[in-house]
């Protein structure tokens, strides 16, 4: 199949274009939810698969009964209707109770994971994430206080995505999923994102982290991620709430580094005086109250 070979070619291209080996666009296999690289994403994948298989099991039973009827009880084969079969309390109790039991079985792990997801305590690094039409701003807090920058769609993607640009998207590495400056986080660390927005609602989502949350103007939402140690690399996602014309063009790229590399990176950022000046200007800007 040409699609598959194209996909493989593309993967190779992407890998070549970026840090060889470490670059990963997406751990998804192209038709199912990725298992992901955080504790939560693994749990969530599990819930997803469990729900899926229960549905398949029910489908086998229900569709099986339907298909059996369709084949067996045909008028053309001389089937005679049993017109007395109009009601059965026993059957109805059974097919009310069994689904309830299945639902309870599925609800328990879902609830447990949810409780875990909502527990943002004891985070080791907080980053303030602000959505704009159409870019993301990242401002580090805690130990990395002072580091901050905007992250926008990278130039090559931006050029290619113009109406009738004539550029083949397949030729652009990580088309629509690459940015000028990715968010950088340490692995093995509980990172808390504080999400808000300066204009309309956006949503921050990286499938491999298993989580998505809205960035709402005037409010701050929390979510946390902990990328397992050893899973360093690039992870890609994009804004997941319609936010106007360029909603499709505000990607999210996260570079996960080892804690040591991360520390080094923070040091380099801080050392950059120009960067610092830029930051403080930004800080003043975001401190302004939102009025429309």
């Amino acid at each position, binding site marked *: 199949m040409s699609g598959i070979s194209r996909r493989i070619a593309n993967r190779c291209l992407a890998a070549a274009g970026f840090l060889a080996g470490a670059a990963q666009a997406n751990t998804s296999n192209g038709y199912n939810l990725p298992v992901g690289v955080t504790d939560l994403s693994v*749990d969530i994948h599990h819930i997803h698969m469990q729900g899926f298989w229960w549905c398949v099991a029910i489908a086998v039973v229900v569709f099986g009964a339907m298909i059996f009827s369709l084949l067996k009880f045909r008028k053309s084969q001389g089937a005679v209707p049993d017109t007395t079969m109009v009601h059965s309390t026993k059957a109805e109790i059974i097919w009310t109770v069994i689904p309830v039991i299945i639902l309870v079985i599925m609800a328990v792990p879902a609830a447990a994971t949810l409780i875990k997801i909502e527990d943002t305590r004891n985070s080791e690094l907080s980053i303030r994430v602000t959505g704009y039409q159409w870019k993301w701003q990242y401002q580090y807090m805690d130990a990395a206080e002072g580091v901050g920058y905007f992250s926008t769609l990278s130039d090559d993607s931006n050029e290619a995505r113009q109406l009738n640009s004539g550029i083949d998207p397949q030729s652009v590495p990580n088309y629509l999923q690459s940015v000028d400056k990715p968010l950088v986080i340490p692995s093995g660390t509980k990172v808390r994102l504080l999400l808000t927005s300066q204009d309309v609602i956006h949503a921050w989502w990286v499938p491999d982290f298993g989580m998505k949350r809205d960035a709402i103007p005037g409010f701050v939402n929390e979510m946390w991620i902990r990328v397992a140690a050893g899973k360093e690399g690039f992870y890609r996602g994009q804004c997941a709430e319609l936010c106007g*014309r360029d909603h499709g063009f505000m990607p999210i790229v996260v570079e996960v580094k080892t804690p040591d590399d991360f520390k080094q990176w923070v040091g380099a950022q801080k050392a950059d005086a120009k960067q610092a000046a830029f930051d403080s200007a930004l800080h003043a800007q975001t401190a302004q109250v939102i009025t429309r």
Partner: protein
Amino acid sequence: MAHASAEHAHDDHPDQPATGIKRWLFTTNHKDIGTMYLVFSLIMFFIGGAMAMVIRAELFKPGLQLVDPLFYNSMTTNHALVMIFGAVMPAFVGLANWMVPLQIGAPDMALPRMNNFSFWILPFAFTLMILTFFVPGGAAAGGWTLYPPLSIQGGDSFPMVIFAIHMMGISSIMGAINVIVTIVNMRAPGMTLLKMPLFCWTWLITAYLLIAVMPVLAGSVTMLLTDHFFKTSFFNAAGGGDPVMFQHIFWFFGHPEVYIMILPAFGIVSEILPTFSRKPLFGYDSMVYATASIAFLSFIVWAHHMFTVGMPLAAQLFFMLSTMLIAVPTGVKVFNWTATMWRGSLSFEPPMLFAIAFLFLFTIGGFSGVMLAFVPADFQYQDTYFVVAHFHYVLVPGAVFAIMAAVYYWLPKWTGHMYNMTLANWHFWLSTIFVNVLFFPQHFLGLAGMPRRIPDYAVQFADWNMVSSIGAFGFGLSQILFAIVVIQCARGGKKATAQVWDANPRGLEWTLPSPAPYHSFQSVPEVK
């Protein structure tokens, strides 16, 4: 009988429709109005479908080839609004107009003048909405859910859409009041509530839903309007409001709305399956109770559309559990339908084919719905094509197929002619194959990480999008067959008998000749 003499006092002869355009403008006849609703709905289905074709053409391959991103957003927004408020809901109201009086043995709808009013508002409302494409700033592009602050950024089209929605709401409320009053007040003697055909039951419950939620939609869009024009702060945090508040109010309407689009479909399927299984509906009473439970539950699950907005944990748990509960009464329905076919004597005329496809494909859509209800998993699914796949499965092979089944079931009763069965069968098979080619790959796209409402996408989504688009074009073209069958049938064809189907269908409508006379049941029928 001394009936109907009063009508002579008015204008034309009552037993004949007026002639020319006046017939349609001034009519108070439920059949005329039903026909107008159905024709309007078909036109809107084509308009909304044409918009979907633009969407699918742009998504055919990565890169922007055809439309500007903003125009793409107007396409999705208006596609949804046209399909929901212009195609599916009016189709159901049209079917109710035609069939409810016939099924309960009433001479007409209870409030005939208002009935005409509720229809004629619609063409004007949609004129207003379509006009938005020609005003500065372009048509509404904030999604059919109209979330602020994005929707408030709209240009001149903004108030037009709001007022168009107000008009649709007024129309739906009046239509719903009419259905309720007709069913509660106009049943023939002996037609007790628990003898009523299920189509009437499901519509009665749908009508209650409509009256309860359409005003809430009106309220929510009114707040959008005042936020935009009169400086109110409902959805503005700086003034003490909250953008998420809109979502709560909207989905308090929006979730019951999706059941408004499926309950009458349940009713239709519950009419057709017994007929062509030659066996009474299994578990009639539990069908009625299940419908009522679904309607009740639909009021307490709305926030499952907003799991990602950052609600308190307790709220998320509550909405997860209540949403999952809906699977139980819906399951009861599916099992009852299966039991209706069991030990029947099945034949496969077009209405039955569509009803069977509904059974399978709606259930698939329901399964993905249940998966969406698990909050942690929904954090991944939300706003992806998995959701798009879910709701198209319940809406297209769900609601739309049921409407088509109903048309194929009752068309001979309306026109007095049989339609072209061969063509109808072609329509069925092509639709059923292509609808799956169209929407099934969207599950994969969503799970692989493709967000909805984007005009262009990363290249790893290219293959399935192409498949989906091909399915879309195939499905769209197949619908031309539907129009041909219906138009042919309206113009002539083999005469239909009163019974139409040799399956001995139950119900008062089959005691009338085909076509049903312009004024039916002037003398009250007897129900045993």
